């Protein structure tokens, strides 16, 4: 009998060992694999796309936000009459019916996209038609409520190599990482009917909406600037034009525009050369608008005073093999420095440069920010390099004093000039005022002082010289009566193949107002105006036209000080 008990015992022990072994294999060795296989049957991993942050104007109005559009797609196998569907869609979207037919006739496809950017109204219209075999998919799209306003400043949103949204150029490009946010993942458990089981819903991990960015851009000034610049370009027959408005005390960019431009909603339809912002990427010879920087340097270095008389201004000045003339070939012997600025006298500026000498002039110009990027928060800023000192010839120093033979970006000039309006302090220009995080915290960007090229006293003296230049200079006919405005016209010849073409100029005007307590500094540049080549007759009227609106916008009343 005993051997039978032993046999049964061994049988049961072996069976239990077998079961334990099998359990060990399933629960320890194959645990991860089986768990994943099980989850695959009832769990679903979803990606939660972040919402791209808004770009807001200083009044909180969105210049770029998101809107809901739809992608219209079709299952070609379920479409009963492809020709009729193509004709119907062609009638709605005003597109060629052949493009829809071509999509629907691709063999062995169960899903074909037919139309992007379908609005809610059109979607509802199509849904009412009960067309078989088509469907809609929600696709968020960038939306620009002010249409193409500030396109070169905002940039646009395209796709990267993985098909994800990516900002290019302007604010969209520079702040892309802040704006785009982070994709999150969520796991949902579904019941037999495919419905989510509430108690098994896992938390959202890692998803973060993009941060919204508030700009210093004043929507009213931006709108005015664009309208007036555009009509000015047409009126004066210019090839292109650009302008920027800045608060000299903080460096805040209040408006920025250039034409021709593009429409960020349909950026792919435009030449890619239009995407860049010429105010920070293109260089030009600034001409007489550069004179205030050199004159300020002379005043600050105490080599001249406003009443210093020019001893070489009775005729053309010879420097090396070159004769330097005034723009109108009129000469004023013993003219004062105040009058040099008023008459925009090139020979007077050569006198200042000779007094300064190359070392001091280059040092001052560097402190004004020439030959270095301004640090503006935009993609693609460029700056020409300062050439080695041994390559500077006397003629280079002479021509630089009146803004020829030197290249700057409009932003460099504006930022340097703004120092005169800000008691000699040069601020970093910046567009972004604050960043709002997804948890509603606000990070404010404070103003940043870059340098102090000239003293407060020099800035005040220079301001008076520039007020005189506006009141009595070539652009006096366009000035705003009742306001004290400091400014300077510029008419720079354009170098073509090593020579200057006298009929092709860059006409500009730079200035700030009100002179006693500047609220804005503005630069207007027209490229090759045809009705007149002079800045005083083209860029200056645009400048004063915009300035009038800005002063009214800031509620700055005219004073009686109308010299």
């Amino acid at each position, binding site marked *: 009998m005993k051997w039978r008990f032993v046999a049964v015992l061994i049988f049961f022990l072996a069976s239990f060992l077998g079961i334990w072994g099998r359990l060990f294999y399933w629960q320890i060795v194959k645990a991860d694999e089986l768990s994943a296989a099980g989850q695959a049957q009832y769990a679903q991993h979803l990606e939660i796309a972040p919402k791209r942050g808004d770009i807001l104007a200083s009044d909180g*109005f969105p210049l770029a*936000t998101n809107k809901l559009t739809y992608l219209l797609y079709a299952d070609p196998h379920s479409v009963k009459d492809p020709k009729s569907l193509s004709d119907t869609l062609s009638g709605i979207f005003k597109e060629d019916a052949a493009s829809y037919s071509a999509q629907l006739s691709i063999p062995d496809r169960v899903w074909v996209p037919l139309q992007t950017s379908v609005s809610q109204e059109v979607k509802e219209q199509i849904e009412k038609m009960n067309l078989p075999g088509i469907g809609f998919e929600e696709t968020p799209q960038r939306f620009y*409520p*002010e*249409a193409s306003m500030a396109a070169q400043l905002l940039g646009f949103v395209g796709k990267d190599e993985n098909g994800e949204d990516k900002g290019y150029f302007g604010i969209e490009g520079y702040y892309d990482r802040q704006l785009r946010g982070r994709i999150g993942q969520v796991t949902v458990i579904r019941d037999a009917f495919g*419905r989510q*089981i509430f*108690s098994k819903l896992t938390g959202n991990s890692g998803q973060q909406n993009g941060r919204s960015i508030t700009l210093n851009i004043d929507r009213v000034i931006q709108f005015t600037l664009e309208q007036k610049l555009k009509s000015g370009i047409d009126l004066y027959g210019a090839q292109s034009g650009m302008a920027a408005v800045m608060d000299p005390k903080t460096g805040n960019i209040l408006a920025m525009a250039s034409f021709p431009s593009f429409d960020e909603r349909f950026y792919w339809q435009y030449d890619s050369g239009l995407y860049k912002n010429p105010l920070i990427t293109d260089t030009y010879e600034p001409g007489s608008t550069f004179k205030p920087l050199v004159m300020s340097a002379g005043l600050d270095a105490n080599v001249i005073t406003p009443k210093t008389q020019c001893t070489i201004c009775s005729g053309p000045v010879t420097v090396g093999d070159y004769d330097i003339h005034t723009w109108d070939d009129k000469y004023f012997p013993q003219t004062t420095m105040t009058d040099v600025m008023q008459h925009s006298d090139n020979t007077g500026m050569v006198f200042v440069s000779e007094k300064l000498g190359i070392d001091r002039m280059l040092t001052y110009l560097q402190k004004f920010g020439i030959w270095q990027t301004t640090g503006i928060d935009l993609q693609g800023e460029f700056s020409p390099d300062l050439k080695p000192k041994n390559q500077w010839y006397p003629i280079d120093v002479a021509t630089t004093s009146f803004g020829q033979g030197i290249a700057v970006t409009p932003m460099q000039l504006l930022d340097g000039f703004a120092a005169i309006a800000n008691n000699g302090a040069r601020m970093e220009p910046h567009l972004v005022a604050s960043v709002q995080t997804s948890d509603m915290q606000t990070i404010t960007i404070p103003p940043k002082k870059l340098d102090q090229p000239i003293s407060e006293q020099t800035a005040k003296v220079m301001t008076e010289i520039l007020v005189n230049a506006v009141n009595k200079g070539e652009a006096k006919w366009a000035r705003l009566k009742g306001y004290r405005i400091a400014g300077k016209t510029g008419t720079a010849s354009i170098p073509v193949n090593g020579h200057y073409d006298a009929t092709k100029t860059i006409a500009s005007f730079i200035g700030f107002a009100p002179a006693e307590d500047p609220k804005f500094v503005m630069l207007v540049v027209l490229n090759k105006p045809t009705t007149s080549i002079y800045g005083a007759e083209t860029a200056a009227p645009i400048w004063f036209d915009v300035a009038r609106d800005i002063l009214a916008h800031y509620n*700055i009343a*005219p004073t009686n000080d109308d010299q």
Partner: protein
Amino acid sequence: MKRSTVILGICIFGTICLSLVQIVFSSAFATDGIDLTKLQSTQAMLERENSLLKEKIYEQASLTTISQEAKNMGYVEDQKSRMVLSSPLPIALNQ
């Protein structure tokens, strides 16, 4: 009654009770799925509606639209007279 029978009875009763509780909770959770789906679709609908309304407001409030509407209504820019809305002087000085 034998002690072992009582223990057995308690065990069976406990098992039945726990099974019932499980059935009740499972049923409750099962219907939560329907509620959740409803809530999610309501949320999606409201978000969609909100997005569309916001879009309309932005379009109507844009300076581009307002200036175009003003033009259509015959408003023109007056280049000569300008009204500056400065702060009024105190009554004591405003004589």
